[in-house]
């Protein structure tokens, strides 16, 4: 490997940490990790710096392989819920159509890929341009959400995650900029039990948020379509 391409890789890594790398760059970095220990070492350093800046508890990067395994497992498990169920297509009941049409949106599992270590921007799905002028802007469906809704209505992890999982022979390396701050693994949260729990918590939060500023009634509108059991007054 020439020093030129090495420098390019380091630049791409830098860009990736700043959430500015494109898909091609990410793929290239992953491909070169095994053959470029300097690359691996730099990632490790960037991550630790970011960690320290945010005064996070120390993360044990000593077993990065394990971490990425669970990340990869998670990624692999997610698509199976997004693929259209051929059985339901054949049965054609209106209920199945309802499920697939991404109408019942619940909690999205974001794999926090691409988050800036240094505490930068979110990658938020775009709803519409915020109107600094009074005229409201037209609604646009965000690409991420609409393309990847699961039957339960989840927004599946951001596209970068799916790209990584399908890379042929991709070495599962810790250069995926997962924010590992509190997690030793990222669990699949798309199961109904977790979704129901999250919705319950959202209702609790909505109740409190609507009483403390947040301009009143709006928080209750955020409650998802999961069948939450009635909340008794506590």
């Amino acid at each position, binding site marked *: 490997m020439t020093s030129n391409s090495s420098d390019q890789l380091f630049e791409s890594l830098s860009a990736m940490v700043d959430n500015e790398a494109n898909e091609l760059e990410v793929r290239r970095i992953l491909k070169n990790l095994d053959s470029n220990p300097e690359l691996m070492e730099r990632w490790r350093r960037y991550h630790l710096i970011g960690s320290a800046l945010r005064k996070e508890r120390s993360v044990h990067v000593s077993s990065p392989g394990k971490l990425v395994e669970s990340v990869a497992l998670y990624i692999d498990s997610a698509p199976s819920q997004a693929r259209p169920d051929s059985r339901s297509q054949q049965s054609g009941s209106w209920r199945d159509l309802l499920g697939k049409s991404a109408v019942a949106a619940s909690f999205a599992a974001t794999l926090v890929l691409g988050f800036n270590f240094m505490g930068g921007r979110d990658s938020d799905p775009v709803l519409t341009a915020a109107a600094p002028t009074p005229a409201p802007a037209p609604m646009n469906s965000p690409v991420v959400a609409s393309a990847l809704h699961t039957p339960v209505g989840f927004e599946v992890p951001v596209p970068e995650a799916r790209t990584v999982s399908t890379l042929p022979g991709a070495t599962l390396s810790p250069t995926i900029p997962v924010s590992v701050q509190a997690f030793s693994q990222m669990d699949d949260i798309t199961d109904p039990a977790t979704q129901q729990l*999250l919705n319950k918590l959202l209702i609790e939060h909505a109740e*409190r948020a609507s009483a403390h500023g947040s301009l009143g009634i709006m928080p209750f509108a955020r409650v998802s379509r999961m069948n939450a059991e009635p909340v008794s007054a506590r």
Partner: protein
Amino acid sequence: MCRLRWFAKLRGLGAQKLAKSPGGKILTPPFFFILLTALSAPLRADEAMLTSVDALLERASRALQESNYQGRFTYEFGSTLETLEIVHIVKDGVEYERITHLNGPEREFLRNGRRHDCISAGSALLRGSLVPQMGGTVSLAQNYHFYIRGRDRIAGRDAEVVQVVPKDEFRYGMTLAVDRVSGLPLMSLTTVSNKNAIERFQFIELEVGGPIAETELTPVAQHHSRLDGARVPCGSQPASSPHWRAAWLPPGFVLSQVSNDERGDILTYTDGIASFTIFVEPIRNPANYKQGVARRGATVALMSSLAVRGAPYSVVLVGEVPVTTAQQVVSSFSGAN
């Protein structure tokens, strides 16, 4: 009605100044009049802006708690559109409200019991007060810029549009449209980087004032949640927790409510505009424990864990803040000693 209060405030201000002025003797009625007129003259542009947005927000906060209103509104994020109905009645000083989702599975909330003059820490912040926190004070203006953006027409009503811009990256922004007649918020966008909106609330129809039949409060859905409004702590002093401590909070956030149930502790933080709630409970069944980040519109749910004296606890943060904020708060959240 807003203008009267505005002038009353100004007059009150003027009166204060007059009382303190050393040359009290010369303040004969004509002088008083001239002084008052001078005070009523346009303030410096930014002061005027802040004061009128102050008034707008305070009025919105009051109107939501003190008026009778009913209407329908939409909530959108991504490709999701929800439609809801709201009825809010104040009777003998107590608020009664019903919020019903009109589409999708039945979801309905009935909340009674809060006194219409109950001002929680968050409401106090929204109304421009200084709220004590950790040896200092916080206020809305410390953390947001405000801009009046002009007028719009929403739900057939004339609205004033305000843009609320965060001063740091720890919170979202907001664009708010307020009914010029009633003061009620008619539309709200939650925005990221002042460019993109990640959720929108907007009224389609609204009736304000006048008597509303109590039958309107009757639940529509078979399954509905009854919430006790009297549970909300009134009084602008923020809460405190004996067991938990958030060593880092985005500037301006205060702990506004602490409660617990058979599961664990629940702590809510707000800066007056945004809020998040932290749920802490012991991990009883490790097999059920999950960690990760989930998102829904502007709401983030971050599930993590914490060890206190060797015992594992699950910590879940739910709120309308950027994920990085949630991560930072949770990572510095710990047991108090």
